[in-house]
């Protein structure tokens, strides 16, 4: 578990923790980079949109190793839960924009969805919860 404030200067600290964690679970380099990118983009969205750029609001991240059955084999994965106490968000707005337009902004959600197998947003009490899951199939396991 990591607890941090919504200060953008802490983004590099989180990236520095997530990539080795993904490595320890056996994710190969391209997946480590994409998982790290997804967490970074999700945190940035919380800082910008949920907390309106206020740098002193709480964010919690929970990391959990998970398993699922895929046919006869079991796949392991990484579950990351990001929690913030900002106002409720309309989940319909968490889709990202089409990429056929060349304009700045709106790419973060697209990068999150590209990287992860599951992206689930829920509101529980006063907390926004974003659950990110990435599974590692056996072909992708790094020795």
């Amino acid at each position, binding site marked *: 578990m990591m607890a941090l404030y919504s200060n953008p200067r802490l983004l590099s600290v989180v990236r520095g923790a997530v990539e080795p964690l993904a490595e320890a679970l056996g994710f190969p380099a*391209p997946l480590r980079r994409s998982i790290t990118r997804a967490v970074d*983009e999700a945190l940035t969205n919380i*800082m910008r949109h949920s907390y309106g750029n206020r740098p002193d609001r709480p964010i919690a991240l929970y990391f959990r190793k998970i398993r699922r059955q895929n046919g006869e084999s079991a796949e392991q994965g990484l579950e990351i839960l990001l929690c913030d106490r900002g106002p409720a968000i309309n989940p319909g707005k968490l889709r990202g924009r089409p990429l*056929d337009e060349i*304009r*700045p*902004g709106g*790419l973060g959600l*697209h990068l999150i969805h590209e990287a992860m197998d599951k992206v689930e947003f829920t509101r529980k009490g006063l907390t926004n919860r974003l659950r990110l899951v990435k599974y590692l199939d056996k072909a992708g396991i790094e020795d």
Partner: protein
Amino acid sequence: MRISARRNNKTTIFDLSGDIDFANSPEVRQSVLREIQEIRPSRVVVNLTEVRYIDSSGVASLVEGLRASRDLGSRFILFGLSTAAREVLQLSRLLKVFEVYDSEDEALAP
């Protein structure tokens, strides 16, 4: 993250180093746009050789630089992309939108 600029004839080269994320992408955006609007170089070259990571807000800053350059009829060129930078531009479908080269020599070729 550090940013510095070199000017040569009508070309400005920005040397960036470190990670570009939401903490510092506004500085990149401001530096690039100010240069384009005030100096009006005919070619803006962004050296990403020392940039290990760039997030979507960093990409957005580069897109703004590209658009501002195009508005003035200038070229906006990137070179020295790391694997991570190349991936993020590819995933954003922007890799082919920018002029991208491997080295500074190629970026500065007429």
